[in-house]
């Protein structure tokens, strides 16, 4: 029948393509693997330090610190209560250690995503050309199944926390970049013009007008970045990231239903807590910026 078999490239050619690409990438990692590992060694240091901080701190200190952060960010008692009770439940159900490891991972990957994403977002907002160049890249990063880019990361850096961190950051950084760009681009043109009229330089405009007014949008980016990083926890555990993902993985392999559900719920609890903290902070930022003409 016409159109039944697609006229595909012949098998030998396809095999040759795959082999050459794989082989050359393998050669690349063999000759440069050590250098690349060396480049990323500061990340390993950062991860270790952060994880030591979380796991060595006495649990009351950790809970107090988390509640303090929640209070400073949201000024809402309900959020503080939610944070405290989530952590207490996690501790009671024997998931404290893993939760601390996951929190450490989330903290570091979010920090890196902010440090990397913010300047890229600013550059994109400055120039349409940069925006056109970066947007498709972000699309790929967000839609490519995360398993696929685990492969080259693992080939380059092996199994462990650093490759896991890189995979998480690649997956989680696009919303940070996009929302920074969007936030800066939607800053009121009148206010920018006023800043110009009063003699602001480029950097003064960025620091006094663009970043502060884009802050609610940037905070939404941070929120999404954290959520996506949490979503990667289970996948990243397949390449050796410790934390709440590993018991879930074990539960899948051995069909331990309760083990899976407990750890899954812990991830959900952390996600909800962080979501409320970041959203609450975003709302407080919005108070004066958003309601231009309303009462407060």
């Amino acid at each position, binding site marked *: 029948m016409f159109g039944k078999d697609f006229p595909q490239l012949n098998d030998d050619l396809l095999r040759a393509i795959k082999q050459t690409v794989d082989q050359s990438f393998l050669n690349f990692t063999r000759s440069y693997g050590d250098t690349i590992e060396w480049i990323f060694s500061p990340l390993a240091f950062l991860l270790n330090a952060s994880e030591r901080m979380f796991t060595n701190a006495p649990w009351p200190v950790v809970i107090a610190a988390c509640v303090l952060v929640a209070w400073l960010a949201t000024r809402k008692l309900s959020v503080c209560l939610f944070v405290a009770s989530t952590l207490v439940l996690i501790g009671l159900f024997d998931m404290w250690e893993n939760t601390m490891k996951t929190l450490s991972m989330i903290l570091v990957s979010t920090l890196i995503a902010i440090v990397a994403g913010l300047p890229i977002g600013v550059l994109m907002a400055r120039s349409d050309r940069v925006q056109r160049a970066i947007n498709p890249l972000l699309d790929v990063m967000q839609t490519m199944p995360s398993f696929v880019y685990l492969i080259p990361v693992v080939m380059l850096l092996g199994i462990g926390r650093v490759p896991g961190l890189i995979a998480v950051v690649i997956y989680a950084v696009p919303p940070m970049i996009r929302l920074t760009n969007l936030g800066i681009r939607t800053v009121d043109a*009148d*206010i920018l*013009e006023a800043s110009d*009229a*009063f*003699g602001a330089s480029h950097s003064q405009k960025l620091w006094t007008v663009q970043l502060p007014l884009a802050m609610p949008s940037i905070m939404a980016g941070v929120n999404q970045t954290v959520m996506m990083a949490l979503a990667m926890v289970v996948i990243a555990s397949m390449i050796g990231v410790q934390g709440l993902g590993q018991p879930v993985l074990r539960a899948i392999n051995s069909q331990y239903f309760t083990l899976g559900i407990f750890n899954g719920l812990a991830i959900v609890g952390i996600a909800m807590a962080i979501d409320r903290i970041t959203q609450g902070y975003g709302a407080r930022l919005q108070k*004066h910026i958003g309601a231009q003409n309303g*009462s*407060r």
Partner: protein
Amino acid sequence: MAPDNLCSIAVTSLYKIYGPDPDKSIDLLRDGVTKEEILKRTNNVVALNDVNIRIPSGSIQVIMGLSGSGKSTLVRHFNRLIDPTEGSLIVNGVDVMSLSPAELQRFRSYQTAMVFQRFALLPHRTVLDNVIYGLSLRRPHVRDAVDRGMTWLKRVGLEGYEKRYPSQLSGGMQQRVGLARALAMDAPLLLMDEAFSALDPIIRVDMQNILLKLQKDLRKTIVFITHDLDEALRLGDQIAIVKSGEIVQQGTAEQILTKPATDYVKSFVGEVNRGRYLRVEAGMVPWVGGTTRPGLTVPLGTTLEAALKTMAEHETASVCVLDERESPAGTLHLKAAIALTVR
């Protein structure tokens, strides 16, 4: 007209064309092609067409025109928020087109200040931090910025509001913050683009009075944009009327009212209460009474409206006008006053 170096602003042969190919459109304009034709042929908008204006120091120059006539475009050339397509611009003795980006920032910071139609306050900063915004951008740092900010807040009547946020203030109060922010710069040139247009009529008159009162001490060069003839006549020492990118008449309120240059200006002027803006000087005849003591008197500068009211109250057909030294300068007859007022 004063020589250029005494003017605060001297604009010569200024053209501004928005669109893909401005230079070609200038040639077309010079060849006598109309703006409408140019828009059709090249998709370019002629916003300013051969504008020439000299603005003297220390007075209020009003630029008046309908929506889309190019007022905002013109005033944004004075601090080069907009670059001209062609023409020369001297502001406070500086050729603004020759400035480098850094020099331009300095020029804007020290020579000009601006008040905006939609206030353009920074919503994330308190009222005081808004007022000192321009000062905070200056390098080296202005040490007494906060004191200066507080002084200006007081002068615009916003004492006690310094810790509020703009969103907590009414429109009129927000624009007073905008005015204080501009005045705190202590710059010789103040640009006001429809600064009071977004305000309610009563608040608007309040703001006009605040501005006139401040200007008595300040004697700055103020360029005030408006589409409202009443506002123009109230505020303007000089008034320029723009129509689709061209200045059709420049002059004092009296000149605009009594000698409208074109039918366009005439149609504008027809709507206005002339007695409120014309002064007795416009209608009086020289004093012929010798040294005899005049009866009913009014001082120079009195509006025709007020003079008419005085005459009506005393049921006389003329009134004597006194100069600053209280000696008679002229006589205003009822007939002349009515003829000028009612047209």
